[in-house]
């Protein structure tokens, strides 16, 4: 076995992605305007390489912001599970971490979400290391290592004008093997995973409710929900029915715990009517509740909610403040 790692030139990588595009839908960083996001691309020249983090997470590749989940007709109710084979290219370590969390939450709880599961199982996920931390990112304080993640099929790291490639799963190895003859001759040593995880909360639920001044924390919050839309781990949803011709369809849309109507009962009663209660829900759900249920903190430190918030709210500062208050 050679000591050399597998390296692809940008041209070779593009060739591989172009080949994958023949029978799969490839999602990759692309731009429709000023901002970068994960878009379906059918031409490699549309892919934006580089170190910029797309402003939205890639969660909608697996959990679209709007999808048809039921068709009602004379014959009954039917569902078509997605069969598309996708490739997600260029997901960063933080997003790989987040997708793995979504997989746990949506497929390993009491009921499996069959739409997410079908998309996830049929996908080839190609991760990409971040060369550097961006303003607002705090992955170095969360369970994310910006230089490596094994929660994908292939992992790439830019190295000069080439990309070093590691295959992480059998699926990844097979896909890569189709383009690199004699794959076995190369070194495939995963780099050591070095999560720091210094920013977590060990607070009792009760303390979050009684000892923290959420009113003050949320003074500027607009309840716009942008933080939840750009977040890679937020996954709340609602159903919406529409009627067309003689059929009715049920769509599933992203919802947000930041919206006042999220918890509004039909009686008019609303358990989280105030924004301080809703913002507390977002922080507590990520840092405390999911940890109680699944053993992980559902915030990767990707910084998206911080960069996109029109009111300058920062979950990092808020969590740091709570730590100071309670620990």
């Amino acid at each position: 076995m050679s000591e050399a790692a597998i390296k692809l030139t940008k041209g070779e990588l593009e060739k591989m992605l172009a080949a994958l595009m023949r029978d799969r839908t490839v999602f990759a960083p692309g731009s429709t305007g000023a901002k970068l996001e994960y878009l379906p691309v059918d031409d490699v020249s549309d892919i934006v390489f580089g170190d910029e983090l797309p402003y939205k997470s890639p969660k909608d590749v697996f959990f679209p912001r709007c999808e048809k989940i039921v068709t009602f007709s004379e014959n009954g109710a039917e569902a078509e599970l997605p069969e598309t084979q996708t490739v997600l290219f260029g997901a960063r370590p933080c997003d790989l971490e987040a997708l793995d969390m979504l997989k746990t939450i949506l497929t390993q709880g009491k009921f499996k979400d069959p739409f997410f599961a079908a998309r996830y199982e049929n996908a080839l996920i190609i991760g990409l290391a971040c060369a550097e931390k961006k303003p607002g990112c705090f992955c170095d304080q969360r369970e994310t290592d910006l230089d490596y993640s094994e929660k994908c099929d292939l992992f790439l790291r830019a190295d000069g004008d080439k990309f070093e490639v590691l295959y992480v799963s059998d699926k990844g190895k097979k896909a890569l093997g189709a383009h690199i003859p004699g794959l076995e001759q190369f070194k495939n040593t995963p780099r050591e995973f070095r999560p720091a995880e210094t920013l977590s909360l060990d607070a009792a639920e009760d303390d979050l409710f009684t000892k923290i001044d959420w009113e003050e924390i949320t003074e500027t919050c607009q309840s716009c929900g942008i933080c939840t839309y750009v977040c890679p781990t937020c996954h709340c949803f609602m159903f919406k029915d529409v009627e067309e011709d003689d059929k009715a369809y049920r769509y599933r849309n992203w919802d947000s715990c930041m919206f006042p109507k999220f918890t509004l009962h039909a009686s008019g009663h609303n358990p989280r009517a105030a924004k301080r209660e809703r913002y507390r829900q977002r922080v507590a759900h990520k840092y405390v509740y999911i940890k109680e249920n699944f053993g992980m903190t559902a915030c990767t430190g990707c910084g998206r909610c911080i960069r996109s918030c029109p009111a300058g709210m920062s979950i990092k500062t808020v969590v740091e403040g709570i730590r100071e208050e309670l620990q």
Partner: protein
Amino acid sequence: MNMNPYLPLKAEIVDIVQETTDSELDVKTYALKLGGGAKMEFMPGQFVELSAPGVGEAPFGFASNPLRNDTIEISIKRTGMVTDAIHSLEIGDSIFIRGPFGNTFPVKGLEGSDILFIAGGLGLAPLRPLITYIFEEENRAKYGKIQMLIAARTPTDFIFFRDYAEWRKIKDVEITLTIDNEVPNWAERVGFPHNLVTEMSFDLEKTYAVLCGPPIMIKAVSQKLMEMGMPQDRILTTLEMRMTCGVGNCGKCNIGHQYVCVDGPVFSLAELEGMPDEY
């Protein structure tokens, strides 16, 4: 349960009973039969999601005997979009249903105990599966004395009124009916349940209280029961929260680390005390 928990099954409405006709409380009970002779196995306390296609979906508790599930019954109060649409359906129409969801009343844990049921208004509906389960001949001897305090605002607001006479014939069953304000020709009690419960006698060592009704009633009654010495883990109730999925995925019914749709809707007062006050 099919592999897709979001996919409802088609059912036929085989009977409709108009329970109350008040402008503020319009409740109908729907008897449903699943398509293809299928049956839905459920236990007392669980709920379903009912769909009016094109309008939407909402959660409702089972209201019928789980041991007689050839048809299932669900009582629905008209309150908004989905419930309006369901109220406009007729016998023979189809409706879509998914479930059963949620946890159950501890039917085994209650064996050997006396039970005090306290229901306000529509709150009797989700208790009816447990009541009828206990009153089944094969089960009756497993449970002790049953007392029921059923409250409604007015005499015409009671639901399942037709059941009471039958239930009263069963051994060791005592039923008290009460309304909010005095009206002519009313031979039963008048007053709020939390004021009447203090008159009831029960053995603190072996009684469970099972409550369902408006939040304010649940709070007032459980307060009184605790003052009378009933331990919090013997007071059971069912919670309502806004829901979408019913299966723990959409985040809507999340309170603390619990999800009312999968960890509830049945909780003891002791469990509720340990949860953030967000319901």
